[in-house]
């Protein structure tokens, strides 16, 4: 019996996140602000606060950077994300951005 199954981080646009259905999500967007322990991500459908624990894998975060974030949905109002992993997507050819998001 499998008792350690981790739910996948389903691909979502920010305006699609449903805290009643989604526990882990992956989001692709641009960083529009970075503060101590927090960044704001914009993917063109909306913006969302991403909480940043200190010990997660992440690149040097900069405003304007294209990133993918794996994280847990926090069902607050408004919804926030607790980041698990942040990946730098700066090398992505932007022609393919929509393919990667689907």
């Amino acid at each position, binding site marked *: *019996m*499998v008792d350690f*199954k*981790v*739910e*996948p*981080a*389903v*691909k979502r646009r920010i305006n699609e996140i449903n805290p009643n259905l989604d526990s882990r999500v*992956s989001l692709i967007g641009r960083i529009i602000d970075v503060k101590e322990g927090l960044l704001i991500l914009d993917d063109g459908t909306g913006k969302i606060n991403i909480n940043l624990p200190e010990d*997660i*894998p*992440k690149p040097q975060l900069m405003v304007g950077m294209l990133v*993918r974030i*794996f994280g847990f949905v926090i069902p607050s109002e408004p919804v926030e994300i607790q980041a*698990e*992993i*942040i*990946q730098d*997507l700066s*090398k*992505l*050819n932007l022609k*393919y951005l929509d*393919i*990667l998001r689907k």
Partner: protein
Amino acid sequence: MQERQVARKLYIRTINSGKFVQIERNDEENRFTPNYIEINGDKIARVRVLATVIDKFVSESNEYATLTLDDTTDTIRCKIFGDLNIIENIEKGDVVDVIGKVREYNGEIYIQPEIIVKIDNPNFEVLRKLEIEKYNG
């Protein structure tokens, strides 16, 4: 001699949806036939998965390790026994391309990796997505 099967590029969701078949090795004919998962009538013994490492576990004895992979369709574990050099440079958050045999234990389908390559270029993920969708529908 059993021919080595090509590793099929698949989403993790597809692998986990397969039915695992354990080969009875009580006759000469099946001696080298690998176990496999059956997906839409295809018998797949070797898979290739591109995914993010969301967890890495190494036992205290350094003789056993697991990587948990997430490709956003589902999650699956890679189990490594014995020589752990294959995951020496792999960390949580890395995107990896894994080639390995499918195995099952206690109801869990997992991958026994043969090759693990770290992928730094996200365009590679786009290519893989298009390949999977072209060849698997």
